[in-house]
C-alpha cells in the first residue's frame, strides 16, 4: 500500500488571532503553529494501515517553509517520507487552491489511498479532500470512522459518520480518498528515536503549478458580534459562584 496523508499546519487553538492592518487577514507572523488536529488522526490511521498491510506513508503538505515543522513531526511519528509543495503564497491558501497546488505532484506518485482530516481548524472550509479526489479522478468518502482494506479485491470498506449518531458502511475501489473524523483512533506521539530518525528522512520540495488563483476573497475579517448580552460575573471564585447561583435562582429561575 502506498498511502498519502495530507496534513496542514494551522495556528494553535490557544492563539488569539490578531488582525493585519488591512483587517483582511490575521497577523501570521504572530502565530504559533501546530498540526491540524483532524489531520493528526488521518496520519495515525495511515500509520496503522501501513502496520497492517505494509507499504509506505508519504506526508503531503502545501505551504511556506514554516510547514516543515509539522512535516518533521509527522515523519517523527513514523511517516516514511514527505512531499512539500512550497510557496510563500500558499500560507493563506483556501482549500481549492491547496488541492490545486498538490494535485500534479500527488498524481505522479500514484497513491493507492489518500487520507486527510475532515476539515482544518483555521479556515474550516471542509472542501480540500473531495476537491482533491475530483481533481485526481478517484472516488472519495468523508467523515470516516473506520477503514478496512481488502487488498485482494482492490477495494476498501469505510464507516461514514452521518448526523445524530447514525453511521453507514460504504465500499469503493482503490485508489480512493477519505477524509478522517477526529476520534477514529488514539494518537501516538513522537519518540526520541522517531525524532532522530526523522532527520534523515527525505522531504521532496516541489514548486506549485503556475497560475494558481483563489476565487474566494476575504474583504473583511472581524470579531463576531455577540448574539446575546452576556452577563459576565467577576470577583473571586467564591464571590462569582455566589453571584451566579443567586442569578440562576432569582433571575433565570432555573434552580
Amino acid at each position: 500500500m502506498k498511502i498519502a496523508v495530507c496534513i496542514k499546519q494551522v495556528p494553535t487553538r490557544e492563539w488569539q488571532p490578531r488582525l493585519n492592518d488591512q483587517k483582511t487577514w490575521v497577523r501570521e507572523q504572530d502565530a504559533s503553529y501546530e498540526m491540524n488536529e483532524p489531520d493528526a488522526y488521518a496520519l495515525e490511521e495511515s500509520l496503522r494501515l501501513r502496520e497492517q498491510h505494509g507499504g509506505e506513508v508519504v506526508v503531503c503538505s502545501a505551504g511556506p517553509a514554516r510547514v516543515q515543522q509539522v512535516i518533521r513531526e509527522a515523519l517523527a511519528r513514523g511517516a516514511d517520507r514527505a512531499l512539500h509543495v512550497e510557496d510563500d503564497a500558499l500560507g493563506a491558501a483556501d482549500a481549492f487552491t491547496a488541492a490545486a497546488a498538490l494535485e500534479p505532484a500527488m498524481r505522479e506518485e500514484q497513491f493507492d489511498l489518500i487520507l486527510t482530516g475532515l476539515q482544518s481548524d483555521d479556515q474550516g472550509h471542509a472542501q480540500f479532500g473531495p476537491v482533491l479526489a475530483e481533481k485526481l479522478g478517484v472516488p472519495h468518502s468523508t467523515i470516516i470512522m473506520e477503514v478496512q482494506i481488502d487488498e485482494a479485491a482492490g477495494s476498501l470498506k469505510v464507516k461514514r459518520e452521518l448526523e445524530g449518531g447514525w453511521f453507514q458502511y460504504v465500499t469503493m475501489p482503490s485508489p480512493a480518498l477519505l477524509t478522517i473524523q477526529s476520534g477514529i483512533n488514539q494518537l501516538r506521539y513522537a519518540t526520541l528515536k522517531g525524532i532522530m530518525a526523522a532527520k534523515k528522512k527525505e522531504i521532496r520540495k516541489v514548486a506549485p503549478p503556475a497560475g494558481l488563483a483563489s476565487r474566494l476573497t476575504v474583504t473583511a475579517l472581524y470579531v463576531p458580534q455577540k448574539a446575546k448580552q452576556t452577563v459576565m460575573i467577576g470577583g473571586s471564585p467564591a464571590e462569582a459562584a455566589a453571584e451566579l447561583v443567586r442569578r440562576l435562582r432569582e433571575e433565570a429561575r432555573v434552580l
Partner: protein
Amino acid sequence: MILVIAEQRNDKLNRASWEAVVAAQQLAGEGIPVKVAVLGQGVSTAASELAQAEVAEVITVEHEALASYTSDAFVQAAAGLVTATAPAHVVFAHTYQTRDFAPALAARLDRALVTDVIGLKVAEGRPLFARPMFQGKLLADVALGGPAPHLVTVQIGAFRADTVQKGPAPAPVTSATATIDPGTVRQTPEAPFQEAKQAVDLSQAERIVAVGRGIKTQENIAVAQQLADAFGAELAASRPICDNGWLPMERQIGSSGQTVAPKLYVAVGISGAIQHLVGMKGSRTIVAINKDADAPIFEVADYGIAGDLFDVAPALIAELKK
C-alpha cells in the same frame, strides 16, 4: 435564478433544507426567482412540502441511482441540473451529505464554493458571505470570483426556517431528467444504522453540565461529575472528551452527537466550536465557565465566568450545597 438543492431521506425532508430556502430568498431579494431541486428516487412528499415556499418552481430529479445517496451519483445529477438551469447561485444546507458532495461538484463544474455561511450582505452590488474562521473566533466576509454559478452552503441554524416566505399557492412541481451513468458510480453504500441504543437521552434532561478540553485529564472528569451532581444535572461533553474515551459517545453534544435544549446548560472548559454550539444553543439559560474570556462559547452564554474551572467549580459546588 437561484437554485436550492434540498435534502431528503426516504422522502422525508431534512429540515435544514428550509434554512437553505430562507438563505436563497434573502440572497435573491426582489425580482430574482428561487427554484428548489430535490434529488432522489420517490421524492414527491418532500417536493410538495417544499412547494409551499414562495419559490418559482420545485424540480424533482429522480433516478434509481439516487435512491441511496452516493457522492458520485449526486455530483453527476447535480452537475447536469446546474448546467441545464444555469443559476447565478446554488445554495445548500451545510449537512454531512452536502459536505460529502458539494466540494466535488464545485471542482467538477470548476466554480467557486463558499461553505458554512451564517450571514449575507451586499457591498458594491455584489453579495458578501459571512462565515466563521479560526474556530469561530473571527468572521470573514467572503466575495466569490470566477464565472457563475457560485456555490454556497449555509450553516445549520444560521438562517431561521420559520422565517421562510410561503407562497399564496403551491409552486409548480416539475421533473427533470437525471443524467447518470450508473457504471460510473464507484461507491456502494449500505443502509444507515445506529451504533447502539442510546441509553442516555440527554434531550429530556432539564439541566446539563457539559465539559470540554479545559478539563485536561480523565481524572478531572470527577470534578465535572461533582458539579453536575450539585446542579442536579446530567453530565455531557464536547466531542474531544468523547474522542479520548473519557466519557461515552452517547454523552456527546453537538453536530455528531445529541442536540439538546434544557432549561439550564452549564458549559465548563468548552471553547465553543461551532460543531458544539449547534447542539446546545437552543438551551434556555446558558452558563459558560472558561479561562479564555474571548472563547466563542461566551457569544451564546447568558452568564459567563472568565476563570479557571478548577477554582470556579469547587466554589460553585460549595455554594450549591449551602
